[in-house]
């Protein structure tokens, strides 16, 4: 990574493709080394053109190693090109199939098909992967359209869809583990081949897509000029954008159905091409596929080398993600024309009068009480739904009360953390998940599960706390240079989440029996909350509510922008640092109790804003009430919807949140369209 950066600083016109050569030479050396292990050099040519049918070694090279390299080239090149195309037409240096949600959509589609309609997969995975990816991409766009498809809005939309698809995949994996374990191993990106059919099928499918994309190159180049100029030149931006994205979607779906999820090649290849000096679109469209092919080839060779040396399979997709995640950080320092996050979003509804505010707050509290009543008094048994009699409630209180108290506490914590993060970053789509704290906690949980012998609850707590604290420390260190600027924070969070994703991919693909426990841990569940833990969460939540009035002023002023804030006498670094620390601690406390993956932090403040509440203090208090109500409701639904299977509250909350976002999206799109 470092060497590439230097190349950028001193653009070497004579050797513009030097980094590609380096990657290719490295990959080729590893491949040759592998080939040497298999076969004496004198037989290589024979193995390539006409392998002897009686020599298994030659056949392995001819039908195993060579098509594997070909598939790596094809997929890498395709993803590289897809990356350039999306980044060009969206004018967003971070857009790629992974960040746009296509991968997770395809994977979810395949999971659903494996469990409920295996018949769909007999003829191949293409159709299902395509459908899943298309739905995910459409939702990402609909979400981002509300913010004028700005670069960061797209990434956040993609992240939301990734989280939602992830939650659904989790739910399926938990309840149908024995059916999906194959998909989990394959899904990490497995390039193993046993004949030339996949390579040929990919070639046949990709060539027309690539040809069409190259045909689009001229209209696509116009995007460099900006929307206004481009439209005045008579180019239909919408048509070009649509066509390019559709082709990208096709390419990605073909790659997913052939080799599984390969993250970050689409991001890394165009970035490297640009850093190596490819400025014009034509250059980038030639070089990025080259970089992509070389990178994936190298990653796959590393994966095979590792497997050969240590005997454990590491999915190629995890390696590309691990290589790509640091690149995101490099990117973020070079991102020219950073999206303006402090730009206040258009408010859809009018502010409330104080009487209406009191009424709204009252309704929210009432809602919370109703949900608590339901949760304590209504359940399901072998005889069906029933309302418990008072003495039954008393008898079951020791089971139900900790759930309710913990759910409330966590709801409050996440809603407050979310509200603070959204206020601080001025981004209504930010959530505490995006800071990466939850991902850090999740990494801690994964470590506890795989690195200690039959860990109990205390072990998990300690590891999770360590993960969260280390992540927080890294985040603070990293963001200090930019005075904790919002976009730096969020991109760092995305990076941490990506690293965690790679780690969990490796864990899941290890085919270890403990993977199912990991899935249960990562789904965000109130299941294991003890009475003591519930009490602690409640106390922390109350303390957090008490802290709200103290940061009211900062939260009112910071969204007005850095200049205004400084003018009003706010020390921005201090304010941001304090707020970041507070929200990170709240998130960490919540993660410790129910694990990662919760949408509450995003949803509760969002809903409150939709109700028309603007001012910081009421916003935080009402969203705390809503967050608590949502969390208790998710917990209750999770316990009874699929009776006797208990779905984790985190999964239910994410699904509720996803539904809510999609509903509001359809409700509000027309107004946005007329406004823009």
């Amino acid at each position, binding site marked *: 990574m470092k060497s590439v950066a230097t190349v950028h600083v001193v653009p070497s016109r004579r050797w513009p493709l030097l980094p590609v050569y380096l990657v290719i030479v490295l990959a080729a050396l590893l491949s040759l080394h592998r080939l040497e292990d298999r076969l004496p050099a004198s037989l290589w040519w024979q193995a390539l053109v006409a392998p002897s049918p009686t020599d298994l070694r030659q056949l392995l090279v001819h039908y195993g190693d060579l098509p594997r390299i070909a598939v790596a080239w094809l997929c890498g090149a395709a993803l590289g090109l897809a990356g350039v195309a999306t980044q060009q037409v969206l004018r967003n240096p971070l857009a790629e199939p992974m960040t746009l949600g296509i991968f997770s959509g395809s994977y979810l589609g395949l999971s659903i098909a494996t469990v409920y309609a295996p018949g769909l997969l007999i003829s191949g995975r293409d159709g299902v992967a395509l459908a899943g990816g298309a739905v995910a991409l459409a939702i990402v766009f609909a979400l981002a359209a509300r913010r004028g498809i700005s670069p960061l809005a797209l990434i956040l939309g993609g992240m939301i869809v990734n989280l939602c698809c992830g939650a659904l995949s989790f739910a399926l994996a938990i309840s149908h583990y024995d059916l999906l374990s194959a998909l989990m191993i394959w899904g990490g990106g497995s390039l193993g081949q046993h004949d030339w059919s996949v390579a040929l099928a990919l070639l046949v499918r990709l060539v027309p897509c690539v040809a069409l994309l190259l045909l689009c190159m001229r209209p696509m180049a116009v995007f460099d000029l900006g929307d206004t100029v481009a439209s005045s030149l008579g180019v239909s931006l919408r048509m070009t954008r649509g066509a390019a994205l559709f082709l990208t979607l096709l390419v990605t779906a073909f790659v997913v159905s052939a080799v599984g999820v390969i993250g970050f090649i689409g991001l890394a290849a165009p970035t490297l091409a640009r850093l190596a000096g490819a400025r014009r679109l034509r250059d980038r469209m030639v070089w990025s596929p080259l970089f992509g092919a070389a990178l994936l080839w190298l990653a796959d060779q590393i994966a095979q080398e590792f497997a050969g040396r240590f005997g454990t399979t590491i999915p190629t997709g995890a390696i590309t993600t691990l290589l790509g995640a640091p690149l995101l950080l490099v990117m973020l320092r070079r991102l020219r024309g950073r999206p303006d996050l402090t730009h206040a979003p258009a408010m859809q509804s009018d502010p409330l009068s104080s009487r209406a505010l009191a009424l709204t707050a009252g309704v929210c509290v009432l809602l919370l009480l109703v949900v608590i009543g339901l949760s304590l008094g209504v359940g399901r048994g072998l005889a069906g739904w029933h309302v418990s009699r008072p003495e039954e409630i008393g008898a079951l209180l020791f089971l139900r009360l900790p759930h309710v108290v913990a759910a409330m506490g966590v709801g409050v914590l996440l809603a407050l953390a979310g509200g603070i993060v959204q206020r601080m970053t001025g981004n209504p789509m930010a959530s505490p998940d995006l800071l990466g704290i939850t991902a850090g906690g999740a990494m801690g949980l994964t470590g506890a599960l795989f690195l200690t012998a039959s860990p109990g*609850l205390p072990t998990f707590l300690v590891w999770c706390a360590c993960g969260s604290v280390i992540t927080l420390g890294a985040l603070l260190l990293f963001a200090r240079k930019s005075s904790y600027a919002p976009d730096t924070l969020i991109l760092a969070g995305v990076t941490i989440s990506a690293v965690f994703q790679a780690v969990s991919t490796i864990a899941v693909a290890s085919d270890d029996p403990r993977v199912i426990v990991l899935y249960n841990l990562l789904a965000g569940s109130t299941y294991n909350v003890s009475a003591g833990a519930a009490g602690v969460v409640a106390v922390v939540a109350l303390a957090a509510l008490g802290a709200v009035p103290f940061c009211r002023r900062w939260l009112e002023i910071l969204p007005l922008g850095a200049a205004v804030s400084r003018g009003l006498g706010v020390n921005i670094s201090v304010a941001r640092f304090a707020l970041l620390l507070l929200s990170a601690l709240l998130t960490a406390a919540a993660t410790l109790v129910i694990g990662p993956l919760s949408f509450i932090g995003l949803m509760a403040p969002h809903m409150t804003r939709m109700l028309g509440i603007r001012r910081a203090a009421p916003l935080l208090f009402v969203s705390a009430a809503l967050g608590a109500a949502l969390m208790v409701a998710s917990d209750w639904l999770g316990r009874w919807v699929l009776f006797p299977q208990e779905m984790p509250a985190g999964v239910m909350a994410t699904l509720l949140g996803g539904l809510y976002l999609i509903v509001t999206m359809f409700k509000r799109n027309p107004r946005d369209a007329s406004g823009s």
Partner: protein
Amino acid sequence: MNRRAMLSALLGAGALAATALSDVALAGDAPAATPRRVVVLDWGLTEMVLSIGVVPVGIANTRDFRRNFTACDVPASVVDLGLMFQPNMELLFALKPDLIVISPAHARLQAALERVAPTVTLGRYRSSEAPYSAARAETLQLARLLGCEARAEALLAQADMVLDHARTALAALPGASAVGGAKGRPLYMVNFIDEAHVRVFGPNSFYGELMMTLGLQNAVHSGAFSTTGFDVLGNVPDATLLYMKPLAPSVVNMMKTSPLWHAMPFKNDGRMMGLPRVPPDGCVLSAMLFARVLVDAFEQTSERTGSAKEHA
């Protein structure tokens, strides 16, 4: 044919004995302190409990258990408690168990479960170097807890007999050395994960230990299992391949079309056999089933090769 009939008869007798004994147990002739209402949250341990004639009141994920643990007969009275690692607590509470059997992977739940009923952690046999022997030891341990030692002793004696007969049957097969057998070829025991990956079971796996007990030679020399591409199956050229059925459609397709698969030595010489599903982490009942499906598969193959020779 005789041997197979005898094995089936032995197994049948065992099952009958199990039912009879469980009836006795239910009639309440054991001392009052012995747990009667047992909940099991782990599949392998569910088999263990069922194998010593105790019918649990509740187990995790009944539907999938029935699909995976074909050697066990789960009565309709057994309540489905939901997910293995998140059983429905209220349902569990309503069942009023007096013992909950869990595996080490449930350590996280133990404190919560203890509030409902005493728990016992078994199931370490899985990570043992000799899973089948360890499962036998744990079966005895569980039987002492549940007051049915006699039944467990009988079960283990029966298992010894079944495995003994299977061993003799395998050794005596005329074609044994051609397809694999006591003094014959090494065997790969695998599970297909997808069209490119297999799980290969080594000598320290449940299958592996049983194969050794049955006098069969494993082509893998160490470890419990590893997940790799199927190309490693070419490493031992004279090996026979045993795989668990059913195969996914994509795997069936691969076996038809892949030139690499067709070049595999066992494929060329027709040395591959599909076995009906036996769980890779089973206990004594599954062990007996495994012995039977192995003998069946070898007998069918040797009959086929025998008749082929006659035709030739």
